């Protein structure tokens, strides 16, 4: 019944994806999250942006509200509530989209807001993955989670450092939206698959989440390396 309760709203909500309008040219896509998908999701979130604008909610308030949300998601993961943690991660990702778009609509996006957003994003990433690290503290998966945490931080750090040196650095598949969707959706699907296999009492690992974490651990570090190579080439005056 719970599975049906999840499947029905999801199917009805996804129906609008197939009726979506062509996204406008301002929306950037990536290999993993295309323009069509992003455009559709931004359209779903636009009314919440309008609501925030109408009530004069500052983008910084939304940005800062991600901190308690991330703490909650991390706590859920640490307590083994993987599905709840996954949905909270997805909700936090949505909040991150809304605050950025709200900032561009209201203030045009200030350097101060961008700085706050970057700092809060790092805290949010760390809190969520730390929860998973606590959950897997007695397993070899702890090493995989820590690698994913390191990779996530390095993807952001290499770009920030390169941009501070005046180099544009956007290489890599595993940017923050991709990581958020992969971790959130991976957690949710892992628990659903686990229940579908009727192994609810099995204390073993969720194979899908294991796959997601390994993908994150490898993908984020490869992305960080690609960014390093891109920045290194630009700083040395050309590709090597």
């Amino acid at each position, binding site marked *: 019944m719970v599975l049906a309760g*999840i499947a029905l709203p*999801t199917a009805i*909500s996804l129906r609008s994806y197939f009726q979506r309008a062509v996204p406008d040219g301002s929306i950037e896509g990536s290999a993993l999250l295309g323009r069509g998908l992003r455009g559709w999701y931004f359209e779903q*979130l*636009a009314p919440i942006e309008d609501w925030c604008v109408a009530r004069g909610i500052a983008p910084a308030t939304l940005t800062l509200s991600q901190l308690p949300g991330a703490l909650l998601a991390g706590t*859920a993961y640490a307590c083994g509530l993987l599905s709840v943690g996954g*949905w909270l991660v997805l909700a936090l990702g949505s909040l991150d989209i809304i605050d950025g778009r709200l900032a561009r609509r209201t203030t045009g996006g200030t350097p101060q807001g961008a700085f706050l957003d970057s700092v809060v994003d790092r805290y949010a990433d760390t809190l969520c993955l730390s929860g998973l690290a606590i959950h897997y503290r007695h397993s070899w998966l702890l090493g995989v989670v820590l690698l994913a945490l390191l990779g996530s931080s390095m993807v952001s750090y290499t770009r920030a450092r390169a941009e501070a040196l005046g180099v544009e650095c956007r290489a890599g598949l595993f940017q923050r939206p991709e990581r958020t969707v992969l971790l959130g959706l991976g957690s949710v699907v892992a628990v659903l698959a686990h*229940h579908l296999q009727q192994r609810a009492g099995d204390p073993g690992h969720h194979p899908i989440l294991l796959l997601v974490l390994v993908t994150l651990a490898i993908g984020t570090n490869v992305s960080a390396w690609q960014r390093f190579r891109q920045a290194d080439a630009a700083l040395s005056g050309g590709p090597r």
Partner: protein
Amino acid sequence: MSPKGKGARTIGFFLTMIGASAFLDHLPASIAGVVTAAGVLLWWRGLTALSARAA
């Protein structure tokens, strides 16, 4: 489509999913039930607002 209905639908969807997931994660039924019920109400309100606007 009514923007208000869409907003309620999106927030309701997330609340419903978090509540339903709480059942799957074996959280107390009272907590999971309250969150799911609030989500379904909001989601349904959003859907009916959209249907009313479409009609």
